[in-house]
């Protein structure tokens, strides 16, 4: 068994010019952790994930290491956050896509995939090394389902 037999081969993806609000809609609707961003030929460019979305809603300085210990002094801020959600919605996801997640290969063994899930605590993109194309996405639920014989 390899990653290619377990992964989701038809994942939801984004194009570089898709907006943050479209990404936010898909993430919330499907409860996905990551959305891979691909170019016109289906080549993998990075991911926009739910943490990126949360980061956009926060003051930038608060997302850098632990420079700001907490934000509780800001008080009840729901209207401000709603406004911010609107403000960030129109920007394209292309420049925000991060290429730094480790990639799964279609021919990888399940145990190697488990190790990467364990270390990085995220759903991971599956990319074909030669062509650079995104061939699927695999989550730790997919891995557990394959091991326990349940349906994912």
């Amino acid at each position, binding site marked *: 068994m390899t990653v290619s037999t377990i992964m989701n081969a038809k994942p939801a993806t984004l194009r570089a010019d898709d907006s943050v609000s479209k990404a936010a809609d898909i993430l919330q609707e499907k409860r996905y952790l990551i959305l891979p961003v691909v170019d016109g030929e289906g080549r993998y460019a990075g991911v926009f994930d739910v943490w990126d979305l949360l980061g956009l809603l926060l003051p930038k300085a608060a997302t850098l290491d632990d420079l*700001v210990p907490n934000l509780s*002094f800001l008080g009840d801020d729901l209207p401000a956050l709603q406004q911010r959600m609107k403000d960030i919605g129109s920007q394209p996801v292309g420049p925000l896509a991060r290429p730094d997640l480790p990639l799964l290969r279609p021919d990888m063994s399940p145990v190697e995939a488990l190790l990467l899930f364990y270390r990085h605590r995220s759903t991971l993109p599956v990319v074909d090394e030669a062509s650079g194309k995104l061939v699927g996405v695999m989550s730790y639920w997919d891995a557990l389902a394959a091991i326990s014989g349940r349906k994912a």
Partner: protein
Amino acid sequence: MEPHGGVWFGWDPFWVSTLILIITYTVIISERVNRAIVALLGAAAMILVGALNQEQAVEGVDFNTLALLVGMMILVAIAKRSGMFQYLAVWAARVSRGQPWALLALLSVVTAVMSALLDNVTTVLLIAPVTLVITDQLKVPPYPFLFTEILASNIGGTATLIGDPPNIIIGSAANLSFNDFVINLAPVVFVVLLLQLLINHLIWGRQMRGDPAARERVMAFNAKEAISDWTLLYKSLFVIGLVIVGFIFARFIGLEAGTIALAGAALLLLLDCFPREREAQTHRFNEMFGEVEWVTIFFFVGLFIVVAGVEHGGLLEWFADGVLKATGGELATTAIAILWASAILSAIIDNIPFVATMIPVIKNMAPTFGGQEGLLPLWWALSLGACLGGNGTLIGASANLTVAGIADRAGVPFRFMTFLKLAFPMMLMSIIVSTIYMYLRYLM
């Protein structure tokens, strides 16, 4: 070759030690190798070639400076975890009622005061991120706030013995107390800070308008929520207060500032660690000592030995004679020359090696100016020049680079030339004010 009886091959110690100093400082300025490594290698070279024996090298190290630095670093490493710096920044935001011009001035004052009482780098490291959050909420550009915080941290640090590393070395070497620094430097620092606030207001403050909804949000900030550990806050304030009182009375109880700072650090470590399990105590202790900037400490150790080498070799006496010839042995000319040379050099290069070298040079001038007492104006000139000069360029002081680093990562670029165009004239202004002050107070 005798190992410690003289310089290799009978070379002239003057030239050998001078050559080692030049090579060491050139490599430090090139920034290709970590400065602590370079300084330690320079120190080792001085001893190996026989320009100094080991006893002379150890005598050259100013342990009071090291103790004061380590002590203050530990105090700050513990105290900062209470959230007190964030508290002050949020408090400034509330008190300014979300008026950007008032916030600009208040954050500068908070930064200056904290930099005077603790150290510059920690102050800006903790104030700058909160400033970014506050300006983000207030929807005003963060650059002016961070820029003025850089200037304020270097200005505030000039006012006290512990505010800036050059003052620590000067105070220790020239036997000047905490009170001496406050009495002699705080008045001019206060004037410089006021002028700085005024200029920043004219350039930025008066043009910035806060959006009303954003201002209302800022006024609703709860500063108390910024404190993450109240117990630790009380313990830290207690010990820092005790240490400052200790500094003030140091002379009368015959203690060096380094002893007081390390004793304070030990007391705060005890208060912080005692309630914990034994293993957790060790862990916490290691964590706090991990925050001591060992690079700075060993940089100082190496530098002290390199400087002791050229002092024994005779370079610094020769240089002091040269300076005195050039200034005609006049106190006023010498003091103003030291002030301006330190300011310009400190804007371009690291001020610590410069100050460490200048200390024995100034000490060598004692006979000309009637003993140690006569040197006082020169010490103040050196301190004002070296500390305030750091404001001239983005690389002039560590606090500048710390803020620039944080700002860059938060998407607020600090460019060398953009900074220089405003900061350099402001630095010159502070040196002009210092010149007038020096002249009126010590040189007339």
